[in-house]
């Protein structure tokens, strides 16, 4: 008896708070590729300050989000780490046609916590480390870029037995951070504001540019906060934040 009463009370309160929050400002659920985590948090804060809308962020690998979105996940905007998945969503009718644009171009970096360990491509050729962490090359674009760069340097086969894979770029970073892997391919954005260890920003000619596209999803087409977020992401405040985190800005579409 008591418990059912309590449940009813909680449910009632939840409905009231939902209605109340809708009355003042809208909120949108945004799926964010893990490499963009810190930048997205800052953008969401600026977005809230400017528009009053709430951007609720979820972080994961692009592959994971893609699968979830095809299975009706309640996301209104998808900030992918690649261009293919947003395009596919648009083609499949899950994204709003014409909403796609490149919000950032990612930079791949080879990083170690040990100062002096990473010097450049010779570090990969000498391979004097036990473990090299990358993220899943099939599910995460930075993983694919890492493999491409290693192939371009002709070290892919030699390094294969030393590779360890994180489920997403955050985990690849964490493997290096905890010292379990001496070096790792991660996103330059993850090193923003830190001078720790040693790093080599992989030259762009070694891998296809990581064009990170955003797409408005069908579920967000009528959501004020979602459409406002897409607009905000193209604006000067967001661009400044994106550049601060080591990304290049995509060409205007």
């Amino acid at each position, binding site marked *: 008896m008591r418990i059912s009463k309590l449940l009813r009370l909680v449910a009632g309160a939840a409905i009231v708070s939902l209605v109340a929050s809708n009355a003042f400002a809208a909120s949108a659920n945004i799926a964010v590729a893990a490499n963009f985590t810190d930048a997205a948090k800052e953008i969401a804060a600026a977005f809230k300050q400017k528009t009053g809308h709430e951007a609720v962020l979820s972080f994961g690998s692009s592959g994971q989000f893609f*699968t979830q979105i095809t299975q009706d996940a309640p996301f209104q905007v998808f900030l992918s780490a690649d261009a293919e998945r947003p395009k596919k969503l648009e083609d499949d009718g899950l994204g709003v046609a014409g909403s796609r644009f490149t919000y950032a171009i990612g930079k791949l970096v080879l990083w170690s916590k040990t100062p002096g360990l990473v010097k450049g491509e010779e570090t990969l050729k000498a391979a004097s480390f*036990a*473990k090299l*962490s990358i993220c*899943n090359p*099939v599910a995460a674009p930075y993983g694919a870029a890492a493999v491409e760069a290693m192939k371009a340097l002709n070290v892919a086969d030699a390094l294969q037995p030393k590779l*360890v894979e994180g489920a997403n770029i955050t985990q690849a970073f964490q493997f290096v951070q*905890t*010292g*379990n892997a001496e070096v790792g391919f991660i996103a330059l954005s993850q090193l923003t504001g830190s001078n720790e260890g040693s790093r080599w920003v992989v030259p762009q000619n070694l891998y296809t540019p990581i064009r990170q596209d955003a797409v408005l999803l069908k579920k967000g087409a009528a959501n004020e906060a979602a459409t406002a977020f897409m607009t905000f992401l193209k604006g000067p405040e967001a661009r400044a934040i994106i550049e601060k985190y080591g990304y290049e800005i995509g060409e205007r579409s």
Partner: protein
Amino acid sequence: MGGLSNDIWQPVRLTVELAAITTLILLIVGTPIAWWLARSKAWWKEGVAAVVALPLVLPPTVLGFYLLVLLGPDGPGGALANLWGGRTLAFSFEGLVIGSVIYSMPFVVQPIRNAFAAIGDRPLEVAATLRASPTRAFWTVAIPLARPGFLAGAVLGFAHTVGEFGIVLMIGGNIPGKTKVLSVAIFDYVETSQWREANILAGGMAAFAFVVILTMMLLEKRTARIGA
């Protein structure tokens, strides 16, 4: 099943290997713990029991996080790995065994403890009056009488290790043939939209889980009948 690459069977073999080794270690390590928990009169023994049972409540991410640090170059795992020239126990089969032993411990210890406790003092006292040494009584009286507990513990420990995911994801590094176990392989297939492979493995896991639970239920029923 033509056209399926070898990669789908490698995780299956690896998982069975991991679960078998973990179960064996747990039977060896868990038995004395279970015996002590069942027989000791120490006031702090429930504290030890609670520590053993922690993985039942803790999210695998907590264990995964601790293990990542402990197995790493700055932890005891790194020191151990140093003995054979390694830096870390993460990303290795040995690391997964350590993680699985901790993670599955309560599933093995609890049934064995219960079985030992159910024997009571009487049979052991009788053995003592027949001049059996405590060690002899343990091997010839307690162990045979606790057999259903051992069986249940082994089945549960094995099954639970097969079903482990979070810890392996956090400390494994997804290396084929070394740390890419079934649950991680399924996660990988789903993430990369390879649903056919995901379906085969997931279906197999569901069937396996059903068989395990059914076995446990039948086992319980038989034990109850013997007891009555």
